[in-house]
Structures are given as C-alpha cells and as structure tokens.
C-alpha cells in the first residue's frame, strides 16, 4: 500500500447533544489531502449534523475539529469558510432571487479588494475589481456548464443545474476541503453518474479533499477511496468500499431495522 496522505481535516472524539438527544457520539474522522471520503448511514444517523458542526453551525460539546493542524471548532461559519472549508446543503440553499452569475460572484466576496469608500465613489479600482470577479465567476460557470443560465434567477434553474450551481458556488470560495451533503439526491441514474464524474474530475483539477454524504451505497462505492459509516450518531465502520459493503454491522444498520431499508434517498 502507498503511504496514507497528509491529514487535512481531523475530527477528534466529537460529541453533540440536542437537549436529551445524543446526535453525535464520540466520532473521530479524518480526511487526507486530495482524498475523497464517503460518509454514509441511514436516515437520522447524524451525517448532516456532523457537517453542521464542521462548518461552525454548531459547536461540539466535546472534542476538537482541526483543519491543517489548526483548531477550528468554535469559530463562526464565515471564518471557517475563510480557513478553507466549503459546503453544499442537503436541501439546496441557493440565493434564489439572485442571478446564477451573482450566486457565484457573491461567494467570491472575500476575494474582493475594493473598500467601502471606493465602492461608494465608484472608483476605478473597484470597477477593475468587479471586472476581475465577473471574469472569474464566468469561468467557473463555464466549467460547470452553467454559462448559458448566467443571467437567470437561481430559483428558476432546473433541479440538476441547481445542484451543480451550489457546488460551483462553494468552490468559488476556494476551499481546501469541499463537503457535499447528498449532491445527487433526487436525481435519476444518468444524472447521478454524470455528477459523480464531475465531482471526481473536480477533485483532480482543483486538488481538493472531498467529504461526501450519500445514502445510496452504490454511488459511494463507485468513487470513494474510503467510506465511513454513521449509525445513531456513532461511527460503526470505516475502510475501503469493498470491505464496508461486507461489514456485518453496516449491513445490519442498513437492513436490520425494517424502516430503514428504503435507504435510497
């Protein structure tokens, strides 16, 4: 085997409760440099909650989260994004009444260099900065095959395009770690394959580390180098896809309880 990649994102012994409900119990997880890690588990296992903690929506009750060796748990979401983590949401959360172009440009906000006074006086410095942002945003849209929608409102895009735009928007913040919460949910098989190929290509082109939540085991098995399984807030298994598929605890988590067998979406 090759040597394991350098660790970029590291969750150590994380716990989180909502009132009496222990949503996350002592979970540890790492994502290596340019690694694509899958996070699977039945409904309500705590996958999204783990994302929310990593991106600063919740602060863990216990444990630490580190990005490239620096602790980020406890920082506000915008600061965590600036440090290099970007995400998408399970139920798409685009800025619906903004254009497709502006969704990406707004995400480029932190790279804007013009100050408030330059903006108000419409200085040429600001105008040049605007040109740069627009150009960059359009390149991003072209990469995601969204350029023909650039002036449409985000809410008017077809579903699959909305999913892609959300990824494009996250990438515009120039992350080192990209976290995707069920990016192919609600798509047909053809669309799923297409988007998974795009994600794989992205990872190579942009030297990204990706953590990806997915319900459908088949999808994850296809592209992930490593898979972690969450069930009732606990990590019950972790390893290469083939091993995970055969793991009796995973099979039980997915097939054991009758109500979770419909673990497709």
């Amino acid at each position, binding site marked *: 085997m090759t040597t394991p990649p350098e660790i970029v994102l590291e969750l150590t012994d994380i716990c989180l409760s909502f009132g009496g409900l222990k949503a996350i119990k002592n979970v540890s997880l790492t994502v290596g440099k340019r690694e694509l890690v899958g996070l699977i588990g039945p409904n309500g296992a705590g996958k999204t909650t783990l994302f929310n903690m990593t*991106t600063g929506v919740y602060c863990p009750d216990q444990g630490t989260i580190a990005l490239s060796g620096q602790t980020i748990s406890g920082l506000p979401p*915008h600061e965590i*994004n600036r440090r290099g983590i970007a995400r998408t*949401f399970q139920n798409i959360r685009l800025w619906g009444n903004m254009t497709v172009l502006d969704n990406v440009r*707004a995400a480029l*906000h932190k790279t804007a260099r*013009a100050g408030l006074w330059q903006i108000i006086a*419409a200085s040429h410095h600001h105008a040049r900065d605007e040109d740069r942002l627009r150009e960059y945003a359009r390149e991003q849209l072209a990469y995601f095959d969204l350029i023909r929608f650039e002036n449409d409102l985000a809410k008017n895009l077809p579903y699959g395009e909305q999913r892609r735009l959300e990824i494009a928007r996250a990438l515009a913040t120039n992350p080192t770690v990209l976290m995707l919460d069920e990016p192919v949910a609600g798509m047909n098989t053809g669309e799923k394959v297409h988007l998974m190929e795009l994600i794989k290509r992205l990872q190579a082109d942009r030297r990204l580390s990706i953590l990806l939540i997915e319900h459908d085991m088949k999808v994850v098995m296809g592209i992930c180098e490593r898979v972690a399984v969450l069930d009732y807030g606990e990590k019950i298994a972790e390893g290469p896809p083939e091993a995970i598929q055969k793991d009796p605890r995973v099979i039980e988590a997915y097939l054991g309880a009758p109500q979770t067998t419909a673990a497709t979406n």
Partner: protein
Amino acid sequence: MPNRLTVSASSTQRTFTWYALYALVIMLLSRTVVGWVGAYYEQILIFIGINITLAVSLNLVLGFAGQFSIGHAGFMALGGYSSAALSYFVLNPALMSLPLDGMLHAVLENVALAIVLFAGGIAAAIAGLLVGIPTLRLRGDYLAIATLGMGEIIRVVILNTNFVGGARGFTDIPRWTGFTWVYLIAGACVLVVRNLIASTSGRALTALREDEDAAAAMGINTTRHKVMAFVLGAFFAGMAGGLLAHYMQYLHTNSFTFLRSIEIVVFVVLGGGGSITGSIIAAAVLTVLPEALRVAQSWRMVSYSLLLVIMMLTRPQGLMGGREFHWSWILPRRKQA
C-alpha cells in the same frame, strides 16, 4: 484590456459628473419652477425629497439586506435634534455675532448647514452602531420589535430632555435649508445606495437576505454586513431629520412616533423592496396622495388607507417588484445590427 481600463478609470468621474449635473438641474429648478409654484407646493416638494431619502435609506436595510427594521423615525429624530441643537446653541449664535455682509453670510450659512447635517447623520449612525451590534443577531419579527423599541426609547429620551424643548418642542431652529439642499442629500443618498448595491458588498447583503446561513457558509460576515447597512441607513435618516429641522424650524417628538417609522416601511414595501426607483416613486406618490385626497375631506385618510390596501392586493411584490426602472422601458430599443 487597455480598452477596459479606460472605461473603468472614468467611472469615478462619471459618478461625479452625473452628480454635478444633477446638482446643477436642482439649483436651476430651485431658482425657477420652485419659486413659481408657491410655498404650498414647495413644501410638498421638500417633503417628497425628505421622504425619498428616508425610503431609499431604509430600502438598503429592509429591501436589500432583508432586515426588518422599524425604528427609522428614531434615527431621524436623533439626527434632527442633534443637528438642531448644534445650530441653535453653537453655530447660529456664532454666525450672528460675526459682522458679515449678505454674500459671505449666505456662504457661511450653507457651510454651517453642511456641518450640522453631517453631525446629525453621524449621531444617528453612532446610535445605529450601538443598537445594531446587539440587535442584528435577532431575526425577523424579533428584530422588528427590538428596533421598534429602540425608536421609542430615543423618542422618549428626547421628550424628557429639557434643553431641546422636551414636551414643548424645539422652537426657533434657524431656517437654513430649502429645496436645493433637500434634493442634494436625496440625490447623494440614491447615489451611495445604488453604488453600494451594485458592488460586491451589495451582493453580500442580498445573499444574506436570501439565505443567511448559506451566506455565512460562503464566507460572508453576516453580522458585519447587517451592521454596515443599518449604520448607513441610520446616517441618511439622521440627515433627513436635520433637513426637516432646518426647514420647519420646529421639532416635536410627536412627529417621530413609530407610526412615522411604519410610514417609511410602507414606502419601501409599496415601491417594492430592493428597488431604488420603486422607493422613490412610492415616497413621492404617498407624499402627494394625502394632499390630493383633501377633496375627499373627512374621508381623506380612509381613502388613503383604502388605496394602500388595493395597491397591496393588486401588486403584493410592490410597484417595481424588486426591479429598477430603465430607460429602455420607454425609449425605443436600438435595433441590433
């Protein structure tokens, strides 16, 4: 690339050229038409200008940043009273004590007005900063109630401050302003808000209106942007208060109850949140309407309210529905080659 640079480099000039041109037109109007129409119509025009400033500045907070603030009258009161205090107690006595001829006196009076208006704006902006930092963490209805309370607190404090007149009202404020200044400030307000929203900060504000959590997740410091919008809005509301003070020569806290705040909210909502031209049109129409409805006599305010209800029912997204007026709406489009 060089082509683009030359285009961009002229944008500051373009901004100032437009504003200078606008100022020229305003001054010309004030020397001609405004004089001809008489005091009654001049007063209506001045109220329109003040209301435009209020509506556009609140639109930045409410329409673009999506923060439901209903304390705008409080900022207006603070700006009005502090600028009036400065002119009444300091600058006007100083101006009077100088043995000046007419021309120089007029010039200095305008300088003094600029100073007190700015001071009023700054006072309101500081209040906006102090109030905004704790309250802008609240969302929706909670923020509305907090800002409403804030506006009332400002009003009650002024009501109980004796040296600015208290319950008697602040009288004998020098009359330093008229049509020209009111519209110079309104134009500046429109210009600043327009440039801001067309910029990266404006997109950040709109993003946080559309989905605050997503905005934060994309690296936008939501609290900072909300406070910025709030402070800028308060600044222009304060200036509007100062203009009112130095036109009416009299201030009373009764003019700044939360009903006044609601009135400004109505301008924004009716014009269409997120549309500057919408705010301008709504502020103008709703200032004229109660006057025009004088023919309805005792049914005046009833018909005013009824018209509001009808407008909201037929066009809930507001007059402009978040879009801006563009010349291409009325001028024939140039044929494409």
